[in-house]
């Protein structure tokens, strides 16, 4: 026995789970949506995603090493996810320099100024998207036409934009298109089916619980459903609301970000329902056609408060209240 015996408090075994395992799990769950993006938008999608990941990882490395002077923790995979999600949230024809600026803001301001992974208040990719949307509204809403679209337009409008501005232009095969991803929009948000596959993977690997995504999607569906029943116009169609825009991407991959979402089950439900509710409000009555990012950003800010006021269900509580 060459080395000294190790002494540490119990437990002496570990599940083998790690931050990077969770992060790479999320990346795997993003693959179907990525493939759909390449199918729909062509190699532009690939280019934007790869560059975005490179920018995010590069900025994190440089900032950690030269500004914060500590060992960069690129290998945990969180910067890669941020990069992919940022790419998924921009149009595939976005100029590269805007993308680089977005990545700098995302990693530099939203993540690293708070102390890196685990300490950020807002989801970096969401904050990055909103930063770009506000700073470059034209470039961020000039949607490329899906390759397999039958119309021969040069730019196109998202389903939500059409619903808001000119409901009569909606295509008759709309539902089918949005489900499989043949629609205009940000790079990774178009394929509802692919995103749902990702959700199934995340739930299967127990990387996330059902509470946040299902409560967001459920709230959006129920809320718009009620409006549709009262006033059946296409703007209120719950199925279109569910399948279009960034709702799926946001609900499954952005709102469920560990760091910026509540920790208790009841907190997750409050958070999810609020996001769903706010998203519908923003979509129907806000200035922008899409509202999921604003809703998530807003609820990120409320997360510490929710954590503070919700406690997990304690053992023996039932009896104690008897």
């Amino acid at each position, binding site marked *: 026995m060459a080395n000294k*015996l190790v002494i540490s*408090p119990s437990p002496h075994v570990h599940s083998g789970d790690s931050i990077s395992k969770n992060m790479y799990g999320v990346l795997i769950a993003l693959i179907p949506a990525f493939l759909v993006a390449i199918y729909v938008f062509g190699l532009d999608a690939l280019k934007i995603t790869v560059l975005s990941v490179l920018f995010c990882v590069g900025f994190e490395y440089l900032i950690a090493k030269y500004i914060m002077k500590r060992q960069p923790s690129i290998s945990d995979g969180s910067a890669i996810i941020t990069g992919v999600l940022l790419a998924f949230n921009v149009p595939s024809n976005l100029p590269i320099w805007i993308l680089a600026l977005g990545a700098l803001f995302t990693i530099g301001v939203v993540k690293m100024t708070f102390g890196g992974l685990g300490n950020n208040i807002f989801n970096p990719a969401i904050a990055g998207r909103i930063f770009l949307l506000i700073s470059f509204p034209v470039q961020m809403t000039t949607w490329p036409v899906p390759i397999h679209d039958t119309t021969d337009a040069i730019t196109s409008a998202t389903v939500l934009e059409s619903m808001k501005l000119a409901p009569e232009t909606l295509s008759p095969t709309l539902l089918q298109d949005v489900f499989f991803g043949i629609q205009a929009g940000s790079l990774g948000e178009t394929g509802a089916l692919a995103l749902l596959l990702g959700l199934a993977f995340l739930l299967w690997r127990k990387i996330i619980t059902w509470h946040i995504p299902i409560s967001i999607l459920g709230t959006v569906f129920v809320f718009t459903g009620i409006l549709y029943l009262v006033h059946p116009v296409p703007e209120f169609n719950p199925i279109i609301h569910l399948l279009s825009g960034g709702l799926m991407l946001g609900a499954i991959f952005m709102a469920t970000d560990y760091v910026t979402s509540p920790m208790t089950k009841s907190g997750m439900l409050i958070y999810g329902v609020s996001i769903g509710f706010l998203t519908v409000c923003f979509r129907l009555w806000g200035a922008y056609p899409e509202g999921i990012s604003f809703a998530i950003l807003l609820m990120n800010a409320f997360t510490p408060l929710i954590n503070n006021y919700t406690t997990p269900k304690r053992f023996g509580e039932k009896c104690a209240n008897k």
Partner: protein
Amino acid sequence: MSVILTAIVVLSVVGAGCAGILYLIGQKFKVEEDPRIQQVQDVLPSANCGGCGYPGCAGFAVACIKADSLDGLNCPPGGADVMQKVAAILGRTATATTKKIAVLRCNGSCEERPHTNQYEGATSCAIASALYGGETGCTFGCLGLGDCVLTCTFDAIHINPATMLPEVDEEKCTACNACVKKCPKMILELRKQGPKSRRIYVSCANKDKGGVAKKSCSVACIGCGKCVKACTFEAITMANNLAYIDDEKCRLCRKCAPECPTNAIVELNFPPRKEKEVTEVTKVKEVTETENS
């Protein structure tokens, strides 16, 4: 232009209005407070170290004013100067206190006290000491995980990387007692700083029997009692195989230290001994070494 003017006017009016409301509310809910509290607080060091036993400097100021005399009230970081000022404000006399300083009653560096195992739990002395005796054979000595360093508000304690023992910076230590309370092994102690910072103390807390103590640490107090006999002022007592020097009785005569076979008695800031005495020390050391081998 008119837009700018309107903006300025509106903002000014709103600002003034708010200020007025704040002022009125402030007047209405004003709490009458003894003005001396603020005065006393102003002379206190505002370190909020808690060394006085009260929660922060404000708490101490209130306690000073409420108390009938300043006996037993002391601001350790401020020292006599500050207490004089407090006494002047309150029109009372301050009791003289001697300046103290924190000392570590353990001298078991990595060399003298070899490690027998490797601790890998959370870096906290409190957690390690709740778990077991420590990384060395000595279950009384310093764990070296730095709870005292973390708790010190004055940046006065640092772990020496060579010995893995904390060292107290005499300039910065204010004897606030925080580290003494924090140490789970209870081996930090406040002792009189002494003239010219000269101090003599037994730098060990090991209560094991001599042989056991010596086996785990070469500078442990083995409870042999030689120092007790050497002391002419009855300042040294022996309990549980461990010698202790009472700093009230000790006259710093330096008779005890050369007697100690393990060099567990530490003399600080004294001039070097004369030639003759030094040889005596080494002789004693040699004797004990042959005894042990």
